[in-house]
């Protein structure tokens, strides 16, 4: 817009680009400090300078003595995150489909999801903890904590499904129906494949938000910790770079999951773009819906949260 001349950019571009760069440094700078410090030598401390380079503190994590139950909490966190992922994906898709109809109490469900999203996490955990206490059920990571985490991931899933469906072109569905597909066939063979990139986005949110969840989980977790709670306990009583090593490991897991999700979305988009080019006919009818449905703008989809 402002940059209408084809030669050169206005000074504001450079000012804003500088601001953006500073912001990205602000986002990633501190994290990279932790990654570097986790490779401290055995005699290194919590701050720079580096006192040698070693994997000592990663080893200390598995040595059990001071770091608590790292292996156990890690495997619980992964299992819980996968449970939350599956439930978030299934429930969000169903809800997304439901909201394409008009139905009584749609507004109520919608506002409840939003309220659940902005509810302070610790208070929600308190409520869930009280509920289990009154019901006489022992809280555990696979029951009370799982439920508490779903109140956080499902609203995100729902909002992403809204964004995805708002770009979905119903023509494909109608075409499938005209060709005699049953309702579930249309869903399974037409709707879901088209929405796949958005669904991967929902899965990414389900996994990572659960894997790192802390405020909602802290009260209803029961007796066995997840990894973020283990880290939280460490922030108060561990004063060695083992804490940073744990931070590096858990962030590495997150990065692997994020990379896998984003790469698969990008691959799907690429394949679609290629097929589109191959079929000139497809371009007329579907150019609007197919390539933009979810993938290219999955960031924005996620963003509707």
């Amino acid at each position: 817009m402002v940059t209408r001349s084809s030669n050169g950019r206005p000074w504001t571009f450079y000012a804003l680009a500088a601001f953006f760069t500073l912001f990205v440094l602000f986002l990633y700078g501190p994290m990279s400090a932790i990654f570097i410090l986790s490779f401290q030598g055995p005699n290194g401390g919590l701050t720079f300078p580096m006192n040698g380079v070693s994997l000592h503190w990663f080893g200390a994590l598995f040595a059990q003595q001071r770091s608590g139950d790292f292996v156990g909490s890690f495997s619980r966190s992964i299992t819980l995150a996968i449970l939350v992922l599956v439930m978030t994906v299934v429930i969000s898709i169903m809800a997304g489909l439901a909201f394409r109809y008009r139905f009584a109490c749609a507004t109520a469900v919608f506002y409840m999801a939003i309220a659940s999203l902005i509810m302070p996490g610790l208070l929600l955990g308190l409520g869930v903890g009280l509920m289990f206490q009154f019901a006489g059920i022992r809280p555990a990571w696979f029951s009370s904590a799982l439920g508490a985490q779903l109140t956080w991931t499902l609203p995100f899933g729902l909002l992403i499904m809204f964004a995805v469906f708002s770009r979905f072109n119903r023509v494909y569905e109608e075409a499938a129906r005209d060709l005699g597909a049953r309702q579930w066939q249309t869903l399974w063979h037409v709707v879901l494949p088209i929405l796949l990139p958005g669904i991967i986005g929902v899965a990414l949110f389900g996994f990572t938000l659960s894997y790192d969840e802390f405020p909602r989980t802290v009260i209803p977790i029961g007796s066995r910790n997840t990894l973020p709670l283990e880290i939280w306990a460490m922030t108060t009583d561990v004063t060695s770079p083992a804490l940073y090593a744990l931070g590096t490991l858990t962030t590495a897991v997150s990065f692997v999951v994020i990379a896998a999700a984003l790469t698969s979305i990008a691959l799907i988009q690429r394949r679609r773009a290629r097929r589109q080019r191959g079929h000139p006919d497809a371009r007329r009818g579907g150019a609007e819906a197919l390539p933009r449905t979810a993938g290219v703008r999955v960031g924005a989809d996620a963003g509707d949260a």
Partner: protein
Amino acid sequence: MRAPQAASSRFTSAPYVLVAPLALVLVVFFGIPLVLVVVVSFFDLDKFDIIPTFVLTNYSELLSSPLTYTLYAKTLKYALIVWAITLVIGFTVSYFLVFHVRSILWQMGLFLLCTVPFWTSNVIRMISWIPLLGRHGLLNQSLIALGLADHPLEFLLFSDFSVVIAYVHLFSLFMIVPIFNSMARIERTVIEAAVDGGASRFRVITDIVIPLSKTGIALGSIFVIALVMGDFFVVKVMSGGQSASVVAAMSNEIAILQYPPAAANAVCLLTIVTLMVAVIMRVVDVRRELSG
């Protein structure tokens, strides 16, 4: 499943079946717990046992303690400062991405760069400031090495400063994403018309971009305010125990099983947050933005 054609236009149970799991989870793990918190706020407390009666002592004690007002003022102060900073960051970053980055691929790439930290651990991102801001941290070391300070600056860590830095670091994303979304939907032709009509860059921002991205701004504001008001771990760690917030105080009560007073505090906090959200929603129709 395959209903006769006529029936599909009239009542159908499909949406109710489809929305049932979501509604069930929300009712069981959000609705009922919320009601229980309200109920327990009227219960009495005998040492560590909850006594189911109806008393107002939790509220009267809460509202008669001067500490309560200090805590709420402190929490509101954090919320307003962080809101202002994240608003400036969110607007500037989105504006840059939407209107200055020409290639859609670059735009999405840079946008993702801003969102990736959201999918990593908040606790780790928070403590990563400690080796930077501490007394012997990187920042102090550099300042002294450069001769800009002759002794370590103490205010950098375990202070309001570090609390605000951590909040901005953790939550600015919640401002960027909604604002980016509404800005990306602004029709370029509107702006071109304004520029052709002689509008300055500044007028384009104040008269077109800001009004058209106000739903995003409102949504981001709701998130940031609710997150800061509901936080307890950032203020605990980053203030080094020297500052507190409403929920941090509440978590201390919960730790010693003082559920009824904590619940009363929770009800007050929720009322205030709800009022703030309601004010924002009155000004801007957020629902239309959310449901696409």
